Each structure stands twice: as C-alpha cells, then as structure tokens.
C-alpha cells in the first residue's frame, strides 16, 4: 500500500528526515510517533504528496498485477487522482467558514465531479448515509462557524468519508479534543477502517492512544527511524526514556493486553515532595 525508501527531506539547511524507509500493508492501522520536531508531520506531507522528498521515493498503491509490488511514485499521481484515493484528517479540522455541514461534506465529492459539479453516481444518498452514521443529520443545515471543536472534527471526518478513500492519513486529529471525544473519534475511524478495509496512517502524540488503536508503530527521533513494529516491541520503557527524556512505567492494559505508558515526575522531584 505504501512503500517509503531512503527518504530525505531538508528545509533550508535543517535536515528534517534522513534515510527513512518502511512499508505499510493494506488494511493496517499504522501509527507514527515521536517527539516534537521529529519529522512526523513532514513524513505525512511526503506521503500525501503536499511536499516532495529531496531524496528517496514514496510509492503508493500496488502495481495492480497481483504481484504485491508497490505502485506508482506519489509524484506521478495528479492531485485529483490522489484525492480519489487518499483523504487527510488534520489537527485543526475546519476553519470557521459560512458553509453548512452538508455543503462541506459534499466537498469531499469534488474529485469525482466534472467541472459543472455533476457526478455519475447519486452522491446525495451517500452523503445522507454518512451524515446518519456520524450523527450529523440534526446539524446538516448549520454552518461550520457555529459548531464546537468536536463537531467540526466529526464534519471533517464525514468529508473524508465522502471521498471514499482507500488510504486515510491522520495528522494528530485528536489534539484539540477532550478524552471523551478522542476515543469517540478513534472508535469511529477504526469502525470505518474495518468496514471499508481502509488503510490508516496516523501521526499521534499520545502514546497510549496509539497503543490502543494501531497494530504497528513507527517511532521517529530527529528525523531518523528508531524502530518499526508492534506496540509491544516499540513502546518499551528504555526507548521512551531515551527519546523523550522521561522515566515512565510501562504496563500492560489489564483488559486489552496492549502496553500503556504511565508517566511520573522526575525522581528528584519525588524526593523533594516527601520532605
């Protein structure tokens, strides 16, 4: 589905990514983790074709001959082809525009429309289904500038669904949401992923959220890959302490068995707290 090889990216003289290579299989829920400035979001921009790699290559899709080989270079797709194929959900879902919820969700159909805005299939029904699924019917005619952060993020998800992509990229979409809405959003994405055999690549800040939803994780630090593997393999106390400079406790989730990271203040602060 995605094949990244020897990718390098510089902004001016600053090296943001170097020698990054990994693969994501079809249907995977793949998480990208790392501290601030580790190059996570840049990596996502390279995959979505917004930016070009200085060296190396990013291939998307498959060769289409059943050989399982990777598809075309991302730069060989036109913007419209890419939009029919991959959708992106961003940190800040939607700016406060005066369009209604329904109009914004319909914008997800843009890549499938001709220049008059017409479409071969009946998009209206699809939109209805999506709105119903995300519980947005009652908001349908409201404008975006009247919605709360959580509602906006749901509309953004609905718009992504309307694109009917095979690949969904998430760029820290839970950042501005409370924990209830975080879980709600991630649940909805996972449900969609399973129904539609979607591949998801998610840049996440929250290690625990990543462990709960992703089946594979990639850990980045200063533009280099530290490790790729299952949450158990990646989220170890030593790694986290080395990269984030903290001393966490890593335990197993009592119900799900996935690793969970417990934070604690630094040892000396604990000491001083006892006095």
């Amino acid at each position, binding site marked *: 589905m995605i094949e990244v090889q020897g990718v390098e990216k510089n902004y001016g003289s600053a090296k943001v990514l170097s020698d990054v290579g990994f693969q994501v299989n079809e249907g995977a829920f793949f998480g990208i983790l790392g501290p601030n400035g580790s190059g996570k979001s840049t990596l996502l921009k390279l995959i*979505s074709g*917004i930016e070009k790699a200085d060296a190396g290559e990013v291939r998307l899709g498959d060769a289409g001959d059943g050989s399982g080989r990777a598809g075309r270079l991302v730069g060989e797709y*036109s913007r419209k082809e890419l939009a029919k194929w991959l959708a*992106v959900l961003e940190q800040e879902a939607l*700016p*406060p525009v*005066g369009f209604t919820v329904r109009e914004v969700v319909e*914008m997800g159909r*843009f*890549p499938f429309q001709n220049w008059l805005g017409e479409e071969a299939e009946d998009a209206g029904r699809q939109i209805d289904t999506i709105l119903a699924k995300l519980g947005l019917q009652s908001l349908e005619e409201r404008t975006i500038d009247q919605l709360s952060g959580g509602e906006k993020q749901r509309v953004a998800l609905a718009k992504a669904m309307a694109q009917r992509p095979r690949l969904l990229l998430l760029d820290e979409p839970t950042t501005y949401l409370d924990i209830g809405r975080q879980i709600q959003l991630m649940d909805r994405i996972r449900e969609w992923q399973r129904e539609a055999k979607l591949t998801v690549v998610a840049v996440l800040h929250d290690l625990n959220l990543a462990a709960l939803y992703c089946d594979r994780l990639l850990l980045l630090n200063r533009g280099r890959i530290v490790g790729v593997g299952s949450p158990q393999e990646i989220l170890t106390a030593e790694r986290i302490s080395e990269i984030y400079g903290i001393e966490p406790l890593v335990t197993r989730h009592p119900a799900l068995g996935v690793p969970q990271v417990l934070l604690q203040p630094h040892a000396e602060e604990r000491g001083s707290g006892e006095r």
Partner: protein
Amino acid sequence: MLIWGGASFALLLLSAVVSLSLGSARLPLADVWGILLSRLPGLSHAIQPRWPDASEQIILKIRLPRIVLAILAGACLSLAGAGFQGVLRNPLADPYTLGVASGSAVGAAFLILTGLSFGALYAQWTIPIVAFATGLLSLALVLRLARVQGRIRMETLLLAGVVLQAFLGSMVSFMVSMSDKVINEIVFWMLGSLALRGWSFSAVLAPYLAIGLVVLLGYARSLNLFALGERQAAHLGIRVERTKLTVLVVSTFMTAAAVSIVGIIGFVGLVVPHLVRLLAGPDYRLLLPLSALLGGAYMLWADTLARTLLSPTEIPIGVVTAFLGAPFFAYLLRRNKHGARG
C-alpha cells in the same frame, strides 16, 4: 440561485432607469421612457417622438453610455475583489487595498501623460494592457512583501498594500506634476471619474469583464474549497498554485481594465462581495455572478450620487466610494480582530 439572480438583475435594471432620469438637465420621466423604448427593436414605429432632440442626445449620448460604463466597471472591480478574497482567504483584500489599482494606475498614467499612445486610434486598447502589466508587477511585489516565513498574514498583507500604494501614488503624482497637460482632468481621472466617456470605452471594458467572469466562474467550486484552507483544498484534488495564479492574474486583469478607463475607484471590490456574502452565503457559484450584478448597481449609484449631489459640480466617484467604503473597511477590520479569520 434564480431568486437571488433575478432580484439582483431587477435591482440593477431599476437603478439604471432611475439613474437615467436623474441629472442636471431635468427631463420628464415620460420622455426618458419614450426615448428608451423607441430604441427597442420592433417598438420604434409604435412610439411617436414628442421630445426635443436635445433630450434624446442627453439620454443616448451622455447618460446611457455613462451608466453602462459604471455598471461594467463596478462589475469588474467587484469580481476582482471577490477573486482576491477567495484565493488569499482574506476578507479585506480588494484591488485597492492590495495596491493593484495603484499599480495599474502607474502604467496607465505613464501612457496617458507621456502621450506615447495618446490620440492614437488604439490608445484605448493599449492602456489597459500596460496597466495590466504594472498591476501584476505590483501584486507580485505586495505578495512578496507580505510573505513572512512562507505565510501571508492578513495584517502584513494590508501593510504591504499601504506601503506600495503610497509609493505608487507618489509616482503617479510625480508624473502628473511633470506633465504639461491640463492637470485638472488628470487629477479627476486619478480620483476616479466616469464623466465624458462615450460608448467606445464600454466597448473596451466589456470583453475584459466577459473573459474575467467566465474564467472566475470556472474556478467557483475551487474557490469554495479554498475557504477550507490551501492544504485541505490540495487534499481534495485542487492544484493550489495553479488556481491561485490564474485567479490572481484574472482579477488583476479586470482591475487594470477598469482602472485605466475610470481611474482609481476604491473599496468597491471590498464592500460588494462582502454584502453578497452576508445576503446569500459564501458559495462562489452564487457569490461571483451576484457580485458582478450588485457591483454594477453599487457603482451606478455611487456615480449617480457623484454627478447629482452637488450638481452641476461633479464629485469624483472615487471620493464617493471611499466615503462609503472606508468606514465599512474599518468595521470589517474590527470584526475580524474579534471573530474568525479567513
């Protein structure tokens, strides 16, 4: 869509008829209608001319061409404003605040004052093209100035516009002061004036408007997606840079044409699209045609005020639009500081 379009069109026609009957020479309403209707094909024989010949001259040779020109120029400037606002995602952008109008004026003034093409048969056609070139140049300069760390913020864009406007304005003033032409006429052009423009000026402006309208309408749906931000627009399949470039160039194209004929008339492109947005929502498929229609009506009223308020003295129309537009700009600026950006 049809309701809004119909209503705006009706308003425009009504404005035209009312404006036609207003003026320093008082003409009876019946005569105005009679003259107009007698010109319609098929009706010319049914109506007996009972008006003096002078009335017909005033209506057909002076007022009507002026009204048509006002409508065309207003439509051009409003559309240009809507285009600038759309791709720059900045509600305060318009041909005037961006300095594009002043930029175009430099080119136009240079040709008019040096007489390089003055008096020549195709002066009317060459001036807009030179104005287009200098307008584009100043737009590029403003955007360059306003870009800080790859982003164009609203405040820096406005500042860059102000700086460039001051600079270009002084260039025009310099050229005017070096010129031996009748200063008064040129100063009037700089402040915007529709006086003494015959039918041929409308003929020059009309194709610019037609091309601009068609191209912008073709990008209407793209501009809707732009409202969500450039990145999201790209993710939805828009070639962002190409769309931006085309819309900016076309908007400048219309600005240059309008400026080279009627001078610098500010704030039309700011006020009209904004009012349309308030009335009919943000959808560019509706916003663009309505801006054209209502921009025409707005300019027509501004010009009607300009020529009747202190009649027989004329106020420059740029003075009228600035008088209405600048407070509006202040209001928008305040609202944007509190509320949403983009």
